[in-house]
């Protein structure tokens, strides 16, 4: 009897997934129809970006869009990263069920070799961003990778930044961006409106700070919970017992 039921259940589920696959295929067909028909696509904003490039302070078109024309998006995006760290730190203390494996000597020496190289590449990408592919995000990603490596190897270099200063360091990127934006408003009257003469230097400094903040936030996100909080499995179980009692 039970076997019969479970077969029926499985059949029902298979039918359900088949049905949803058919629906998804139809959705794809509709999307493809929307993508392929409808004549020539618009030429986009390439020309207007080029026309204003002279006033933007940088030569790279993508950087000009990110840090000048649409800098407000980038400002909010720095806050998205910051928000990610706040949310991850707000979750209850957590310890993975499988402890990390011991650190081998190969990893330790590889880290010693790779970290300076990664910082160098990050710096280069940052610099290159002003006139070709590259910029704060690419540099930040590399720096974030370096942070992840340091965390994996539990490197002593991590103690360069004391844990007390970590929240401040995480805030620094969005705060600096906000201060620059408001400063431009106080001096020039428009939020995020840099003057043409100073735009180049403002963008380079912004990019450097943003790259650092992105790298740090990425490493913090990889680490998971707030650094100062350590909890034993016992304490967690106790807390959970109490909550279950309350419910």
């Amino acid at each position, binding site marked *: 009897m039970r076997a019969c039921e479970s077969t029926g259940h499985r059949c029902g589920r298979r039918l359900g997934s088949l049905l949803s696959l058919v629906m998804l295929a139809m959705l794809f067909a*509709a*999307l493809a*129809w*929307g*993508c392929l*028909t*409808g*004549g020539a*696509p*618009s*030429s*986009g*904003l390439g020309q*207007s*970006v080029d026309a*204003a490039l002279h006033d933007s302070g940088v030569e790279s078109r993508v950087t000009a869009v990110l840090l*000048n*024309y*649409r*800098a*407000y*998006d980038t400002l*909010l*995006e720095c*806050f*998205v990263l*910051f*928000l*990610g760290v*706040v*949310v991850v*730190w*707000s*979750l*209850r203390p957590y310890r993975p069920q499988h402890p990390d494996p011991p650190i081998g000597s190969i990893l330790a020496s590889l880290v010693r070799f790779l970290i300076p190289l990664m910082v160098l590449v990050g710096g280069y990408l940052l610099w290159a961003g002003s006139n070709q592919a590259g910029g704060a995000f690419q540099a930040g990603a590399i720096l974030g990778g370096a942070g992840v490596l340091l965390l994996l190897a539990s490197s002593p270099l991590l103690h360069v930044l004391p844990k007390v200063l970590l*929240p*401040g360091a995480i*805030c620094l990127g*969005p*705060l600096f961006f*906000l201060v620059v*934006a*408001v400063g431009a*408003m*106080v001096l020039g*009257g*428009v*939020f*995020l*409106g*840099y003057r043409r003469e100073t735009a180049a230097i403002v963008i380079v400094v912004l990019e450097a700070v943003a790259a650092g903040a992105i790298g740090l936030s990425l490493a913090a996100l990889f680490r998971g919970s707030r650094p100062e909080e350590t909890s034993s499995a016992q304490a967690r179980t106790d*807390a*959970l017992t*109490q*909550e*279950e009692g*309350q*419910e």
Partner: protein
Amino acid sequence: MIRLLLQGDCWLILPVILPLLGALLSFLLKKQPRLPGVLGALVTFFASAALAWKLVSHGGGRYYLGGWQPPLGISLRADGPAVLMVLMTAVTGLAVSVYAGGYFQSRINKRGEEQRHLAQERSFWPLWLLLWAALNGMFLSADIFNMYVTLELVALSSVGLTALSGKPASQVAAMRYLLVSLLGSLSFLLGVAFLYKVHGSLDLLAIGAALSLAPAVVMAMVLISVGLMLKTALFPFHFWLPPAHANALAPVSAILSGLVINGAWYLFFRFWQGVLPLVGEGAATLLAVLGGVAIVWGAYQAFCQQRLKMLVAYSTVAQIGYLFIIFPLMEMGPEQGAAAVFYFVISHSCAKAAMFLAAGTLFLQVGHDRISDLDGVRQVLPKTTFAFALGGLSLMGLPPTGGFIAKYMYLSQAVSQERWWLVAVIVAGSCLAAVYICRAVAHILSPRLVAVAGPVVVAASMEWSALALALVAMLLGFVGPLVLHLIEVAG
């Protein structure tokens, strides 16, 4: 600086940057997060009120960020509906912030687990202020990609707030909420990509002016609508809402039900406002049918609930329906329809937030929220029970509340356009709301003294802020012309 403030344009950006600043400060001052938190809320409230005053005295306008005109740059737009939403967020947000201060203090005082409650408060303020900034940014934005970024900010901070309580049920609910939200955001983003492909611009006004029914535009509208319907929790996408809203901390429930839902719906409304003349009767009727089913189904579910917060959460599912039945009515009279639905949104926001705050106070005092065991609680918390009942009156649509004015405007529209089935849905929804609210109110107002024991542990600010919000919901029944005047200001 003063000259700059008087010149006026920067009023538009202040409701976004002030809470961002407050969030950073309350994150940095982790020993005393409440001080920058409440201060940030207060400053944001005044900035929003100033924006509304500016709008009424000088008319709407656009603000070009960085001085770059669209389509190259991003612009903010202030018109009646946008500023009304910012103002609504400010009023509800200020009350919730005052409530939250007392709430966390009471919890820290009450039980032994000080550390856990301190940690909750430490995360609450930055998350809430970031959410507030993102909502204001969303209401004021005129750029569709910027809307996507603010949508993500809203989604992530709401998920963080939902998970804050740490209860197992809330973690599972937050996980589901996050996945649904991400699906909605990605669908929205793909729609934005389609629109950009066709129009070569991200400015909503420019796109709206050139809109056609090309296949790519149709797909874009479908993707954007479905994504936003997921986030608004319109039936049948409502499944994630009740557990997420009911298992969160009390101020968080009020924020989610009173404000966050309206954010996603507002974007939906903005997109549909432009296309509505093109799509014809069918699509608008489909939305209204979904809304009608939501009203009936949500009310039925609310009636079946055993827990007070679940009841209020399902009532949100029902009330969301009203936000969507307006679309067929808007074809004939766009202005009147918009006025009615925005009136509904603001009165629902105040009433629902007041009810969730009151329910949270009851929960904290009694230690549970089983409706059948809440008899006689009014003798301990008279102001809170009054606030709950008053909020309920507004949901039912009884005079002299804001809910009554909104439903009256709905009904007069529906009658004058002879859409009798909508009249039936609105009347039935109000009757059903009366049934489930009376069921809860009958218990908390009953003269019997059963469960309540012990001294009052809740802070006075919790009781007063809930009552103030409920009174605002009632006051909206008297200031109709003022609000309607604000809605009609053009951008």
